[in-house]
Structures are given as C-alpha cells and as structure tokens.
C-alpha cells in the first residue's frame, strides 16, 4: 500500500526545493532576488497540505493554494458581493433554475479549453457517492444539470435553494472547476499533488511540509494576469516566524499575522499591514441538554456576565470586533447591525437573571478549549470574568481540536470554545448551527419557530428579504442563548514595503490574491 514516488518526481521536487529555499538566502550573502520575477508569499500558521484536489480539500492552507490554481463559476469581491469568474453572467428564470453563460477561450493549464461539460462534470463528481467529497451535501439540492451549448449551462434545484449561488463561488465549498478530460475515468492518484485547473497559476512543485512553487499560466483568461512569473510559497508553521521572515526580507507577503504584533508592525516602515474584518464567528458552545446549561435563565445570565469588547482587546489584542450574532458582519446584508442588550455586560442583571434559574453561585462546569494560545486565552478570559461576576466555579480544560469536535458531536461536553471560519453564506452559519437538523448544531438546540424561519430563508431568493429573515432568527436565538456569540477576528496580511497590487478579501483567498501583485 506504499505509494512509491517515481524518480522523476523526486528530481522535480528537489529542483523545487532548491528554488524554494533560495528564497531564504540572506541579503548579505549577496543573493538579492531579481525584482518581481519571483514573488515569495508565505503561508503562515499552517504547514500541512494533504491534497490540492478542490473536491477533497478541507484544510485552510489547501484552499489558499487551490485559489491560485482554479476558478469557479462565480467569486466574491472585497465587499462580499457575488461577481463573475468563469461565468460571464447568470440569470434565474425561475426560483429553481440557474442559467450561466460561460466565457469562451478559457484554457486549462494543459491547454485544453474549458466548456460547460467540465462544469457539469465537476458538479456531478461532487455529488457522486464514489468520489465521497466532504462537500457532497451542499450540492444535494441539485436535481438536474443541463449543458445547453459549450458555453451555457443550466442548474436546476428540486426546490428554491438560495445558498446555491454562494456554493458556486470560489470559496471553500469545493466547486472549483476541474478538467473532465483528465478525470472522467476516475481521479488519478497524482491529481492531488499535480492538479490541473484554469487558475492564474500552475503548480510547478510541492515539497510536503516545506514549500510550493507556482508558475504563471500564460493562457490565463484575464488579460495581463498574473503579473508575476513565479511564486514561491514556503509553509511556515509559526506565525511569528513568518513575521521575522518578512522583516528580514526573506519573503514578501504573509497570509496571516499574529494579533499581538499588529500595533508594532503598523508602525514599522518595512512592512505594510492590511487588515479587514474576517468572515468568521467565534462563540462559546453550550450543551443545552446537560446541566447547568439546560436552563435558559442560566444561559442568559452567562451572556450578560462578561464583556465582549475586553475579550477582543485581550484575546485578539484588539484585532477584531464584537459579534452581534453568529452571522459575521462582513456578510453585511444578513448580519445583525446592533449589539443586542443580552450580549452586553450587566453584572446586576446577570445575577438577577441567575436567581430565576435553578443554578446559583458555586455551580461548576468545564469549558473545553484547544489549539493555539489565543484560543486557550479565549476560554480563560471567559471563565475568569464569569466566575467573578456570578461567583460560579467554571474551569478550563485543554484538549485538542479533534477530541473536542468528537465530544461535541457525541454530546459528551458541557461547554466549549468553538468557531467557524471562511463560511460564506448565512445559511452555513445560521441554518447549520440553529436548525434542529443542522449539521453543526452541537448544542441540542431546537426551536420550531426558528426552524420555520430558517427553511423560509433558504428558499427566499430575494437577498434583502432573506437578510431580514436571518435577522429575525438571530433575534429569537439571542433570547434562547443556545450559544454565546463572542467576536469575529480580523484577517491580516503583511506585505513588504514595496509590494503593491494585493487586494484583501474578508475570507482570504490567498492564492487568487497573488495574481494581481505587481511589485515586489
């Protein structure tokens, strides 16, 4: 069962490594990189990439790279508005029918033209049992896919399904268009490490755990893009190391930045700090089925017993914003605009609320946490404040994300720190977390009124009406308090002083953002 690598690939990999490590040569050694022939863009905070097959990718760094190699029918702009990508235009003749007009002359990395057949193939592959994509369920509402002509395709859903448009954008939903002619007889083993897409870059080499090298796709459909010929992507596990590498001149861009360093870096002339509210939501998940979180008054008391702004200041070093609900503010058309009273610190009201519950001072509970330092701090800050205000005895227990996830799924948990990153449709947040059947509803929360509204929102094709429905849902949910929404964090990119052309997106489409960089 050992996959044997052929010698040719080893040679290529070694060449790629040599190329990649050249990026680390210190300046004084006299090896300054040529101006912008090679962009060095580090992925920081992660270093594991298992697959670059969009239908199978689940890890964030995988998505970062996939964004540079593939396109979707649509994509988001900086304001999280849907704009064309491979599809020039789309129309909705009926609530269950989406018709896309595709660009012509789009070439895959191997020179073959992309047509509607590839789109149909991509979607059917995602829906197939055999391929077993983690994103399969998202495309289950599709009932039929019809190729009208090589550049026109119709997608029909069984019922009106508003999120489908979001799922067809270039995010982490797996719908990047893959080449039918290479995959129609099954996915070859090496597609995961030698992917072929239509994106601005081609993968030249990949050194697991270390670095990737991309080269420009000369036949990319957007004129003049990409502006750089070669991109070196070192995988730097420690964020702070990425900062040092940037300051030292070994890399030009980082994909993230440590919250603690932002103020210092903003004042540093060697680096430009880009920041934007991110599409993410961090909250405290309470298991509504077990004590002491089975009492709504107790939950409400908790909600008023800590100050979210100081949480942002202390946990994120100020690099974030208080969350008014679970839908991030960057999805502006659906997010709650004002901070609900129940999420504001009010010690007296909290204590009064607690007396209405069956739990009082001295109540014990364990809050699970995991992961990097700021996640652990998140739990600590919550517990410290709540213990002080309500005189309860909560404790933090550190575990790892896999274990916590399992425990949440099996219900073997009281409370835990949790969050979602990079989901782009409010349905993914609200429906999945609050609906009785939601796939992310680990709180055992069930409110039929909320369920009805969420189902309605799913089939409401008018965006502003849809947004209002989600706000109604969140208003009810805030009273029920199944979770305690806390904050959303900013996304950051660090750029070396002379880098220009990099545009930040709230969900960090790193690979795609590299295409417009013109100066390094």
């Amino acid at each position, binding site marked *: 069962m050992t996959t044997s690598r052929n010698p040719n690939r080893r040679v290529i990999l070694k060449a790629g490594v040599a190329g990649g490590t050249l990026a680390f040569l210190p300046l004084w050694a006299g090896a300054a990189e040529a101006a912008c022939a090679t962009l060095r863009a580090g992925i920081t905070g992660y270093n594991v990439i298992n697959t670059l097959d969009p239908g199978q990718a689940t890890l964030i760094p995988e998505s970062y790279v996939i964004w540079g190699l593939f396109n979707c029918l649509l994509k988001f702009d900086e304001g999280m508005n849907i704009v064309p990508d491979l599809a020039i235009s789309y129309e909705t003749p009926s609530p269950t029918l989406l018709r896309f007009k595709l660009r012509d002359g789009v070439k895959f990395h191997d020179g073959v033209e992309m047509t509607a057949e590839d789109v149909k193939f991509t979607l059917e592959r995602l829906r197939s049992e055999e391929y077993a994509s983690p994103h399969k369920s998202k495309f289950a509402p599709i009932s039929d896919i019809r190729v009208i002509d090589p550049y026109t395709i119709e997608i029909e859903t069984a019922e009106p399904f508003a999120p489908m448009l979001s799922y067809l954008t270039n995010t982490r939903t797996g719908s990047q268009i893959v080449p039918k002619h290479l995959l129609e007889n099954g996915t070859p083993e090496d597609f995961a490490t030698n992917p072929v897409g239509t994106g601005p870059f081609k993968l030249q080499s990949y050194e697991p755990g270390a670095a990737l090298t991309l080269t420009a796709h000369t036949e990319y459909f957007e004129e003049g893009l990409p502006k750089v010929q070669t991109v070196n992507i070192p995988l730097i596990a420690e964020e*702070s190391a990425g*900062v040092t590498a940037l300051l030292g001149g070994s890399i030009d861009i980082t994909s993230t930045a*440590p919250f*603690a*360093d932002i*103020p*210092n870096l903003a004042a540093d002339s060697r680096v430009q700090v880009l920041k934007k509210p991110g599409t993410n939501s961090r909250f405290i998940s309470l298991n509504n089925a077990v004590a002491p979180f089975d009492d709504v008054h107790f939950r409400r008391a908790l909600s008023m017993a800590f100050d979210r702004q*100081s949480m942002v*200041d*202390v946990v994120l*070093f100020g690099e974030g914003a208080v969350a008014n609900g679970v839908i991030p503010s960057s999805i502006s058309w659906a997010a709650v605009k004002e901070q609900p009273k129940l999420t504001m610190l009010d010690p007296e009201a909290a204590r009064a609320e607690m007396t209405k519950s069956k739990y009082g001072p001295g109540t014990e509970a364990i809050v699970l946490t995991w992961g990097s*330092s*700021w996640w*652990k*701090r998140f739990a*600590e*800050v919550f*517990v*410290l404040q709540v213990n002080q205000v309500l005189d309860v005895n909560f404790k*933090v*227990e*550190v575990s790892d994300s896999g274990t916590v996830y399992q425990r949440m799924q099996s219900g073997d948990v009281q409370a835990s720190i949790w969050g979602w990153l990079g989901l782009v449709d409010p349905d993914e947040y609200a429906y999945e977390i609050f609906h009785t059947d939601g796939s992310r509803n680990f709180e055992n929360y069930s409110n039929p009124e909320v369920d009805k509204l969420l189902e309605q929102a799913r089939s409401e094709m008018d965006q502003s009406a849809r947004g209002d429905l989600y706000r109604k849902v969140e208003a009810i949910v805030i009273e029920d308090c199944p979770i305690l929404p806390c904050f959303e964090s900013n996304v950051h990119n660090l750029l070396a002083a002379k880098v220009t052309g990099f545009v930040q997106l709230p969900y960090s489409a790193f690979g795609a953002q590299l295409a417009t960089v013109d100066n390094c």
Partner: protein
Amino acid sequence: MKFSALIKNRTALAGTIITCIFLLAVVFGPMISPWASGGFDFLNVLKPPSWQHPFGTDSLGRDVATRVLEGARISLMISVSGVLGAMILGITAGLFAGYKGGWFDAIVMRIVDLFFAFPAFVLALFLMVALGFGVTNVALAIMLVYLPLFARITRNTTGIVRNDAYVQAARVMGQSTPRILFREILPNISAPILVQASVAVAFGIVIESGLSFIGLGVQPPTPSLGVIMADGQEYFRRAPWVLTLTGLTVTVALLALNLLGDGLRDLADPRLKARDA
C-alpha cells in the same frame, strides 16, 4: 559531610544560599504578594516591568512575578515528585542489582541501557503522547526518565562497596539483605546519589518547562514555568520581558541547584566520580 565543611566550600555555600532564598520566595512569595494569583486586569495588559510589577504584566494583566513564583512552586513540585519517585524505585532496584548480581543484575542493567538509549527529552515527549498531557503525567514522565539513572549509579556504587569490611561484618552478624542494603550500604553511597538528585531536579524542571512550552506538558491555566513561557512566546516581540524574566528565574534556580550539586560533589568522596547525565 559535615555542616562546617559545607560552609567552607564556596560553591556549595553559594548554591545553598541561593537555593534557600529561592525556596523561601517560592513558598512565601505568593502569600505576601499584593497581587491575587488568579487575578486579571484587562486595563493593564502587557505592561513592562515597573515598581508595582517587577516582572511586568502578561496578556491578561496578571502580575508576572507572582505567577512566576507560583509557577516555580508547581514546576518544582512536579520535578521533585518525579525525581523522588525515580529515586525510590531506582535506588531499590540498583541496590538489589548491585548486591546480588547474577541474572537480576543483568536484566536491570539491560533495561537501564534501553532507557539510556533514548534521549531524555525524546523519551519524555514519547511518554506524553502515550499518556496524555497534564501535571501528573509530566511528573510520571520525569520519573521514568530518571529511574534508570538512579538505578545505574546505585548499582555501580553498591557493586564497589559490597565487599567492604562493614558489609561483610553485617552479613556475618546475620542481618537480612534489605537491612544490609538500606541500613549499611545506602548511607555510605548516598553522596553521589544526592549529587545526582540535585542535578536531576534541576534538569527535571527544564524537561517540564520544555514540554509545557511546546504545549505537550502542563496545560493552562495551571501556571507552570513552561506555560508562562509559552504565553510569553506568543507576544515575544512586543513584550519580551515575560519570556525573558521567567527564563532568567529558571536559570537562577538551576544555577543554585547546580552549584549545590557541585559543592556536594566536591565534598563527597572525590574518587567516586558520578557521571554527568
């Protein structure tokens, strides 16, 4: 080892004094400190050292000096309990092995060799993966790392003295083996063992803080020294004093223990050269 001899040797004296100061600080410091140990102060986050906060404040506004003293207590406790466990089991095994010889000795030594074939930190890391992290398991890991060391030293020195006059006399008088081992032999070979014990406690603290530092040992919010340093590492560029001063404290503590160990070694039988771990 006489007390007066201890005072005369400068290194041992310095070591003892610093160790005592340190122990006093660790035991009484958190009590007399004006800062609550579990306190937090969100308005005074990451402040540099000042008169109020000699070590500055950390990311939650806690006084670092108080935390360090608490952490030192925890780290010391972990290291000492691990080393004590290692001593109890290791010395017993070593005494019997050195005295009896034969197949028991051979087996014990083989096991010891096996443990010695793993680098100490790698062994500790491996054990943490196998046992899971947390305070007790770190102590357990330290115990398993040092057990073979004490077994070997005890066995070697027992082997050297087992045919000494007083041992033979005890045998002739019909004393039972355990009595001979623990009452006669052990006190006479205690010197190199104690030297190793001080070194072991010192390095045990390093192992614990190392494991906790990378996140595989003691977990927050328990403030062991490694946990405090891990916290300090996150914002090292912005507030380097947390990591620096915590580590400096560890260095001073270890310095004291090492000096003490050196002094003991000088005072003890100079021919009994204990090997460095």
